[in-house]
């Protein structure tokens, strides 16, 4: 929790020397509490005060990356418990767990599946972000080789070294340290050795304990050993443990400024039944996990998990939107049909997808309606005949088409009369109500 002005004042030199530009230390303290000014403006502040104030002003949940390079996934930094209050910031990473005993072919195949998991949905590229390699063989040379193999075959995936044996983990960490793998995990017994390896290689370290009290003590210990980037595993396995522990962690961090739990969370949701696994993963995704580890990555499962994550991490105030312009689809010529819709991402991607499916060369005019769907925009007065007419005129599209015909969504058939009045010389055609009827409609013209 942020400190109050009076609390800050107690830490200042109290000399009122004005070097900070404020008449008194108290005035400076008040300003600091409001934010927007930096402590460094006071040249005489003690190291002790810097440390205390620095900690108090740090974000309640520490932010750092899982993995290295362009595909690293940002974790932590969340500020709310409910998405209607404010956008959830850093979408959780999805990871798959592989046993090192799977054999080279098995490992290579799974790693390739991860590397090829990317799907485009509503204009975002979504993928399985990370691979957890589990130390199941009991052979540390084999483990390091498996980790190396997976790292090579999935060059953009973040790595999680799922290995509680310090010697084996240390060797693997060295082998792939430039990929910044997450070390999973330190327990109370192994904290010293694991922290030493993490520190030496500059890696984040997961802390694993049974329950939140033990976990808090463990993160304090690890931090004391010099590791700052910590990931929390409270031992939660069942859906109930996941929702309860994750909620308590998030609340403690945000509402109580409880530093020992102010870190990203990892949940393993491994289940034999892949549909059930997806459902339990949904609990973790919705309830505050930063890394969700599953045991299999069927394509259908990836798609449901990606979609849920995308839905919950959208901005509740600003719908996802695409740019206003006339989009060419399937290489249109002057006499290709021209259609219009709104700039709500979902609407645009559904409609443009169906036009692509039809293979009919076409143009799709996308009008800025602040990211609202066709009917919502119409009901909100943003997709009206007058506004559509103005947009079509200003777009300059008239010069590019040989027949002035505009196809409007079936849902707003009611606009056709008014549009014909406002867009002189244009023919208005009412298209189908649902996008999936567009291919038949276009081909039948």
């Amino acid at each position, binding site marked *: 929790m942020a400190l109050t002005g009076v609390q800050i004042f107690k830490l200042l030199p109290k000399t009122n020397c004005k070097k900070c530009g404020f008449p008194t230390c108290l005035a400076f303290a008040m300003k600091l509490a409001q934010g927007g000014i930096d402590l460094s403006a006071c040249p005489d502040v003690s190291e002790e005060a810097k440390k205390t104030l620095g900690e108090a002003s740090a974000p309640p949940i520490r932010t750092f990356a899982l993995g290295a390079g362009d595909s690293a996934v940002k974790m932590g930094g969340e500020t709310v418990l409910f998405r209607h209050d404010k956008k959830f910031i850093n979408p959780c990473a999805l990871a798959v767990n592989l046993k090192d005993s799977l054999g080279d072919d098995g490992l290579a195949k799974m790693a390739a599946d991860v590397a090829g998991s990317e799907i485009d949905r509503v204009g975002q590229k979504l993928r399985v972000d990370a691979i957890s390699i589990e130390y199941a063989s009991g052979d540390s040379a084999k483990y390091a080789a498996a980790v190396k193999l997976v790292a090579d075959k999935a060059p953009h995936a973040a790595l999680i070294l799922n290995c509680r044996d310090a010697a084996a983990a240390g060797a693997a960490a060295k082998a792939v340290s430039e990929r910044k793998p997450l070390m999973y995990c330190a327990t109370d017994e192994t904290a010293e050795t694991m922290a030493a390896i993490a520190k030496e290689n500059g890696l984040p370290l997961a802390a694993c304990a049974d329950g939140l009290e033990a976990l808090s003590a463990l993160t304090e210990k690890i931090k004391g050993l010099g590791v700052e980037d910590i990931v929390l595993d409270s031992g939660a396995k069942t859906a109930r443990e996941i929702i*309860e522990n994750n909620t*308590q962690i998030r*609340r403690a961090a945000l509402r109580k400024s409880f530093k020992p739990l102010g870190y990203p969370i990892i949940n393993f949701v491994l289940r034999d039944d*892949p*549909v059930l696994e997806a*459902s339990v993963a*949904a609990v973790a995704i*919705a309830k505050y996990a930063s890394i969700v580890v599953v045991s299999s990555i069927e*394509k259908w499962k990836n798609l449901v998990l990606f979609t849920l994550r995308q839905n919950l991490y959208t901005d509740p105030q600003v719908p996802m939107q695409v740019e206003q312009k006339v989009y060419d689809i399937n290489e249109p010529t002057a006499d290709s049909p021209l259609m219009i819709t709104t700039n709500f991402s979902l609407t645009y991607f*559904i409609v443009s997808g169906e036009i692509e499916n039809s293979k009919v060369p076409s143009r799709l005019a996308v009008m800025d309606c602040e990211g609202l769907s066709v009917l919502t925009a119409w009901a909100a007065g943003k997709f009206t005949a007058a506004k559509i007419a103005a947009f079509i005129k200003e777009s300059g599209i008239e010069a590019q088409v040989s027949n002035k015909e505009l196809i409007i969504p079936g849902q707003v058939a009611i606009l056709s009369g008014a549009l014909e009045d406002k867009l002189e010389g244009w023919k208005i055609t009412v298209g189908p109500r649902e996008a999936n009827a567009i291919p038949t409609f276009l081909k039948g013209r």
Partner: protein
Amino acid sequence: MSFVVPKESFNGKVLALDFGSGDKVLALGGESSLPFLSFEGQIPNRPVIAYEIQDCPPDDWPETVRNVYKEVSGDPVGWAKYCQDTLKAKAIALRLVSTHPDRGDRSAADASKIIKDVLAAINVPLIILGSNHIEKDATVLVAAAEAASGRNCIIGKAQEGNYKTIVAAALAHNHKLIAMSELDINLAKQLNILITQMGFDKEKLITDPMCSALGYGLEYTYSVMERIRLAGLAQNDATMQPPILGDVGMYVWKIKETVASETDVPDWGTLQERGIAWEAMTATAMVLAGTNLMIMRHPRAIETVGKTIDELTA
């Protein structure tokens, strides 16, 4: 620094109701905590899932889910019995699709007969749903309430445009009632107020803030439900305390992800699992947001969500 469990205690409580009759009565709601946070409040009843059936063959359901019922779906009575006896449904939701003017325009009297036949064949609680045609539902649901008299059903949905006759009928025949509005917490609140102003007990109401499928506006439903729950619990707003309904199946089993074949969209994986998982995930998100009662279609999706709820309440 030592860890103290950060608990919240609320003044408000979700209202509890029951539906059905005899030894199969089911209770809904009654919790005094946010969903599944039993460390800080009471959660007397787990969310209930009802199997959806129709008064006509489900020609517009995609194959994945239509096939499950192909032997029985020609007849609502056989379909209902199959759900109860073979699939062990705890509740059934009968949708009177064919009363819709565009779907057969069956009369209210026809609907009454079907309801009576179904009720005679089952003993699990029944939910009776109109065809979502504002004017037609106003007469069909009135007849339905009478036909189901004495069985303590849930009927719906009453909407702003037709609630008056439906509320009066539910009141007269002692049923529970679903009040549906469209994805707006203020509209939901307002409709509940209008209905209770007619003398309808708020303890008999269920709020349907409108469902939406994963990938197709789920986040709007999710957040509206969370806000309704918080209003009922934290602000003790009595008009926001009825149990919440998630009418999941009908929103899921029409979108492209549950219909398109793997040949059309190879990146999306097998159609069968994709459809089932889509319904299950949508429902799981709904229970996390506060849903007390769900209407679903595919037995495997229902089973999966049931297992997830088992885990959440274990």
